[in-house]
């Protein structure tokens, strides 16, 4: 099994260690809120080193083929070594004389060996080491056949889950450290600006690791399925992953975060209004109920003293947040980017969701109200279309859009490419577009293709009016027929040629004298 040594020996251990270090840093910062005198750097370094050690030791055990009690002894020595090193680490930076005094005190007071700081560091180190070992275990078993076990977790799922949960814990601890525990319940506090470096490091490394895991998984699968893998794939994978993450990172950092909190405030306003309405309805219902019971109570002789119903003051609506100072151009750009991105994301997700579930769309569209809405929208669309038609007729002919009623071919272009970008089409579609474009232009000049004419017949006919571009017309027609009716792919050179022909024919058509009789003239001939 060929594996990339650089990935196994350097990239993975360092990434896992970096991620563990990021989490450890957040925990250390949190604990230092209570014990500010503790040495945080030493704990973080210990966690990073333990994570590295966990990776290498696991692979060493596998390489040596250790089993049973040998593994147990190995692990016990590792843990003992951690403890010793942590104790030694805790004495670093202390004067030799004090160290000596401390060492002499240990036989009389053994609890001084493991004080609270060392204990905390030991727990953190053990956690880091365990997670790193487990991660290495999961990384090593990517692609292995699954075990028949109810509780079996696929390695990729385990790794992804660990990354996600680690991230959530990191966000929580780092966040609490930053805002303070007392401020946690105060949701009206202002947002906290600034970069949280260890969070950034964790997520960037984690996403890069996800890319690497996906590559490893695919590589294993391809190996099993005897798929030939080109050598350059790994190189391109790294490049494209970094490109992808760079792009998404750019989007994430460009988008303003200031909109999200007001958005939440808007949500809370909506919820407040809804609660207010429900409260009002409930009070009205109670009032009606009491009014209904009043005559009955009188009949029974009850002495009802009218108590004015006091619905109480209505809840105060939360005030809308004010915008602050006038936005500068950059803020405007960011705002536009944010809302553009958010809207496109929502539209995209909804569209994909509905595309994947056509039965849902069909089911929903059978509902009468929706059908009525659909009919209304259709009527509006027709009306707008009619208005546009009227406007077109009034616009001077020089800037007039293609008239739908003037022939059979112009609509073909629009039907086929209702809203398009030429670059967004495939080469074959572009070939078709070039041809249909010429048909449309020729029809506007009064030389339409009749529905019964084949492309070649029309080519001969139009060629008689445009003898100077006869060859170009032949080539364009051939290219259209091939693109439209064959499965052949069009190459770049061919497309360039056809594009050049298209431009030449367009120029020739512009120079052609318009014929006013149009289709009628053609039929008469």
């Amino acid at each position, binding site marked *: 099994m060929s594996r990339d040594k650089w990935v196994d020996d350097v990239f993975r251990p360092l990434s896992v260690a970096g991620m563990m270090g990021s989490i450890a840093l957040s925990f250390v910062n949190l604990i230092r809120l209570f014990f500010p005198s503790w040495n945080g750097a030493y704990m973080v370094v210990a966690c990073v080193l333990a994570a590295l050690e966990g990776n290498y030791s696991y692979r060493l055990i596998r390489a040596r083929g250790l089993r049973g009690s040998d593994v147990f002894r190995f692990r016990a020595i590792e843990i003992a070594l951690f403890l010793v090193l942590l104790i030694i680490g805790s004495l670093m930076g202390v004067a030799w004389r004090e160290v000596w005094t401390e060492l002499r005190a240990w036989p009389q007071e053994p609890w001084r060996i493991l004080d609270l700081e060392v204990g905390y560091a030991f727990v953190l180190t053990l956690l880091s080491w365990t997670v790193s070992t487990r991660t290495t275990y999961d990384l090593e078993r990517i692609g292995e056949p699954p075990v028949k076990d109810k509780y079996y977790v696929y390695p990729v799922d385990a790794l992804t889950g660990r990354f996600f949960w680690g991230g959530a814990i990191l966000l929580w601890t780092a966040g609490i450290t930053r805002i303070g525990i007392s401020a946690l319940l105060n949701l009206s506090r202002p947002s906290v600006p600034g970069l949280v470096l260890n*969070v950034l490091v964790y997520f960037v490394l984690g*996403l890069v690791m996800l890319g690497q895991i996906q590559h490893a998984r695919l590589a294993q699968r391809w190996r099993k399925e005897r*798929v030939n893998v080109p050598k350059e794939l790994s190189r391109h994978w790294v490049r494209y992953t970094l490109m992808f993450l760079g792009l998404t990172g750019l989007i994430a950092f460009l988008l303003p975060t200031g909109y999200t909190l007001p958005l939440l405030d808007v949500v809370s306003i909506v919820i407040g209004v809804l609660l207010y309405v429900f409260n009002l309805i409930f009070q009205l219902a109670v009032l009606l109920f009491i009014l209904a019971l009043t005559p009955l109570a009188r009949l029974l002789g009850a002495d009802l003293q009218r108590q004015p119903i006091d619905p109480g003051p209505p809840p105060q609506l939360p005030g809308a947040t004010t915008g602050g100072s006038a936005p500068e151009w950059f803020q405007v750009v960011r705002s536009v980017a944010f809302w553009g991105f958010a809207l496109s994301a929502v539209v995209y997700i909804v569209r994909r969701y509905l595309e994947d579930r056509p039965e849902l769309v069909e089911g929903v569209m059978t509902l009468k109200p929706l059908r009525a809405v659909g009919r209304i929208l259709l009527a509006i669309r027709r009306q707008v279309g009619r208005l546009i038609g009227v406007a077109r007729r009034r616009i001077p002919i020089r800037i007039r859009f293609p008239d739908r009623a003037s022939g059979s071919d112009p609509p073909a272009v629009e039907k086929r490419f209702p809203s398009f970008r030429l670059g967004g089409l495939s080469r074959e579609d572009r070939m078709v577009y070039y041809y249909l474009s010429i048909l449309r232009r020729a029809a506007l000049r009064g030389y339409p293709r009749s529905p019964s004419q084949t492309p070649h017949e029309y080519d001969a006919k139009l060629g008689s009016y445009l003898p100077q571009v006869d060859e170009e017309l032949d080539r364009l027609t051939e290219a259209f027929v091939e693109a439209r009716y064959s499965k052949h792919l069009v190459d770049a050179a061919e497309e360039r040629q056809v594009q050049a022909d298209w431009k030449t024919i367009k120029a020739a058509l512009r120079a052609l004298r318009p014929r006013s009789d149009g289709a009628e003239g053609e039929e008469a001939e």
Partner: protein
Amino acid sequence: MRKYLAYLLLLFIIAAILRIDFYFTIVYLFFAVYLMSQVWKRQSVNQIRAERQFTGRAFSGHSVPAKLTVRNEGWLPVPWLTVHESLPVELSTPPFLRQAAVLGPHGEREFSYRLDCRHRGYYRIGPLRMEAGDMLGITKPIQVEIEPEPLIVYPRVVSLQELGLPTRSPLVALPAATPLFEDPSRVMGVRSYRQGDSPRRIHWTATASTGELVVKQYEPSIARETLICLDLSRESYELRRRYTAVELAIVVAASLANHIIVNDGLPVGLATEAWDPLADKQTRFFLPPRSERAHLMSLLEILARIELGEATAFPDLLRRESVGLPWGATLAVIAGQESKPLFDSLVTLRRAGFAVALILVQPTYPSAEARHRADVLGMPVHRIWREEELEKGL
């Protein structure tokens, strides 16, 4: 994917509770990763085009080179793509082409393979399945499929000289002494003048050179159409030797057709009832005799793809398909074994004025009774069993 979205929601809740701006950036990052993965994956898959290039017709024993071109027509690179081309097991080992590829913007990859046409048949090359996905494994990969394309491998064709049959009229044993009609455009030879011969038949050049009167002998002008009747009903072939016998019968039919059209330039047709894998049902094939090359290819295409069919009444087929043939046409009947109903039908056809030849594809020689009956009818009977016999001649 659900986990990912749930996680995104969790991150959002944490960010909303803690109200740290940077956390929203992390949420955006995850959201952008999800959305970009989806968009990238779909966009790149939509822009992939694939084309298969190979010759759709081949003869048995040939090797056909095939080329598969996969092209990315978009500006977004395709980070990974697996190509799985299914190939018929009879033509390729292993019966697939599996390749992983990476396609840059407007990138293209070509994959080549060979199809060893060891056995006649109608094959489907493909379908081609392509799978592409994102780089982080967040979204499910998308699969696209390209339709299969047919490849027809014609059966082996052996020259009739090797079979030892007469080349001009391979199967027809016409009574040349008393032809009913003669074709004056086809001079067969000369003979001495006999009393009663028309002066128009005198071969003056030959008379001058030989010094005696000789007259031209014309070829008989009765119909020279041949209909190959191939029996492919299941019960006509012994179970143990069925595969070999059927394949040999088809080779014989193809060889006959090829010889008659290519060498003699005479029309030949085909009548059979067999299983058609293209239509996926039992089909009756009847190609009326014609002498064009294109017709030969059509005939070979049918012979390439047909397989042993259900039990059918072959004698009935013979009678039915011979109805439209002109008087004197030849019927080359290829069957798996002799049988009384078959002989009865052949007798009927012989009496109806057709020339009939029987080719039995079986390991044993025809029985004495069958040979006797054939001799009485003036009907040649051939037996073929091994490929070597076919190549060496009878």
